[in-house]
């Protein structure tokens, strides 16, 4: 498979009253055509900021992509002029968000909101756009599409609105769909519907999906390739089966063990002690060191680099570094 997008050394920083926060710190990965890549991590790990950096929607002032490149279909998105990047958003690059309830404009009818990208990117006229919008609504599994097109967002449930968001995202046939926690705000039975639909659209259109989530269950269900982030850095990445069956980084292992799984009840749940470090007080070290069972002196003073450890898996941890050295 060919690369659709290659991110290299991406850093996005936020400049706050209290200092500089490296929300995304030297992150590199790629998304191949037709592949689903999941970025998994806890709040504040930089997974959403990575997505916003790709879309060119990092909040400014305050946030800024400070270095790196995002090569999408051979072009560096970070070098493009504003106008070109804008014409790619919603067209080749589409995005859906966590909160469907607040992601649609409350005072504009659903139909019009779906029509907007069709008119801007595909240059459809009003009539064509409306016809296509109605078709899209029924495509995302909503009955009575005409009636829905003329309603306002508050008249629909969260699940329906997320379907509408998906309809908007796929309307112009994107190459890459970025889904930032698309089901976190939804109930499980609705989540199952939405995930099924995303899978089906992917199969039909051959688009790639960059799925951002904190839910390992969702990752296992959707991903081909998984990236684990912690405090703005990638700590481990690999093919989904390999990563789940043979996690290398202590954080990944801890994460997998600390989630209770249905029908696999244990008397005591494993838990990672402590909490995420303060992003303002990060010194050169492994950022996970004070929560890690295997912490060594080197972990406190030097940052490990992401290394290939075979089986297409990469990990950033001194444990494997040592192993490599001694081998």
């Amino acid at each position, binding site marked *: 498979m060919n690369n659709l997008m290659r991110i290299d050394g991406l850093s996005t920083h936020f400049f706050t009253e209290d200092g500089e926060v490296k929300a995304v710190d030297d992150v590199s990965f790629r998304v191949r055509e037709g592949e689903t890549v999941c970025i998994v991590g806890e709040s504040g790990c930089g997974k959403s900021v990575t997505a916003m950096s790709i*879309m060119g*929607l990092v909040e400014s*002032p305050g946030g800024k992509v400070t270095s790196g490149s995002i090569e999408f279909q051979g072009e560096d998105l970070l070098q493009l002029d504003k106008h070109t990047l*804008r*014409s*790619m*958003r*919603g*067209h080749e690059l*589409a*995005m859906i*968000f966590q*909160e469907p309830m*607040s*992601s*649609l*404009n*409350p*005072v*504009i009818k659903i139909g019009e909101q779906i029509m*907007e*990208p069709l008119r*801007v*990117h595909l240059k459809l006229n009003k009539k064509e756009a409306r016809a296509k919008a109605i078709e899209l609504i029924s495509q995302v599994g909503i009955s009575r599409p005409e009636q829905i097109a003329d309603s*306002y967002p*508050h*008249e629909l449930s969260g699940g329906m609105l997320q379907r509408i*968001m998906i309809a*908007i995202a796929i309307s112009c046939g994107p190459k890459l769909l970025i889904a930032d926690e698309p089901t976190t705000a939804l109930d499980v039975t609705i989540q199952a519907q939405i995930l099924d639909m995303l899978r089906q659209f992917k199969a039909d259109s051959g688009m790639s999906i960059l799925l951002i989530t904190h839910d390992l269950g969702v990752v296992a269900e959707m991903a081909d390739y998984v990236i684990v982030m912690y405090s703005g850095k990638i700590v481990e990445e690999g093919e989904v089966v390999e990563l789940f069956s043979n996690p290398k980084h202590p954080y990944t292992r801890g994460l997998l063990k600390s989630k209770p799984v249905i029908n696999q009840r244990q008397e005591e749940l494993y838990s990672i002690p402590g909490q995420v470090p303060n992003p303002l007080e990060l010194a050169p070290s492994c950022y996970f060191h004070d929560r890690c069972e295997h912490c060594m002196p080197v972990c406190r003073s030097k940052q490990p680099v992401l290394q290939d450890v075979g089986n297409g898996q990469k990990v950033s941890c001194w444990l494997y570094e040592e192993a490599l050295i001694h081998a």
Partner: protein
Amino acid sequence: MSTYLTKRLLYMIIILFGASLLIFCLYASTPGDFITGNIKLTAERKAELREIYGLNKPVLERYGLWMKNALHGDFGYSLAQQKPVLQLFNDYIWNSFLLAAVSTFLTWVIAVIIGVVSAYKQYSWFDTLVMVAIFAAMSLPSFFIGLFLIKILAVDLKWLPPGGIITTGSNATGWEYIKEVVRHMALPVIVMTLLGLGSLTRYFRSNMIDVLRQDYIRTARAKGLRERKVLFTHALRNALLPAITLVGFELPALFGGSLIIEKIFNWPGIGQLYMQSFGLRDYPLLMGFTMFIAILTVIGTLLSDLLYRIADPRVRLQ
């Protein structure tokens, strides 16, 4: 009629009754009356006139009489001008409305534009400048800025007339008349716009800042819409929506005139009429005017509520 509306209207009426009683008693207890001030009259004549106008009766009885007439649409007879109060209102109110309408319109247009731009460029030097200007406008003593501008623009530079609605003694007609009125309006309109601008600009600015932070603005950008479209279709609609409630609150200002500005600029409006009558203790007129404003205030509040319910689809169909 719905119970909600009935309840609101009933409450409005009760409040207005209470207000009228309070105001009436207050006016009644202010020193002197229209007759006291007239030195030409003999003591007997004064007593006679008081008898005629009912000024010697107890306050509550007079209030009862006033209320009875008011309920029949008769707000009394101005003692000083010897005309029915309502007719006087009709003579003066449109001058007030002219000033208020023009300056309100200007205030809203300017406030929306500046508010939107400075919200969009939050933290820029332009925004800081706007913030300082907003505070300046909010801190102006209205009579002082009026006098100050008259002194500079009318007295010293002689660009504009210092007051009145037409030049004294002028008998211009047609276009000439309109031009003259416009020239006389200019200064009071500038001052009134300036005074209103501060809080309104601030209101739009902070509304717009809130809206620009919403998730749906991010969605609009993610769709690849032009920034102008994001700003004016998606953001502005949401930022303007709550402002609809303000329309109702403008009601008393639109028709009630401005006591201070009209006095300073010698504008023959209803506010100026009130100021004159206050000195003369022309109670029927004072009472009529105050109640008029009170009624406008109450109606305006109700109007705001209803407008908001109609305008916001979220409220409308809940």
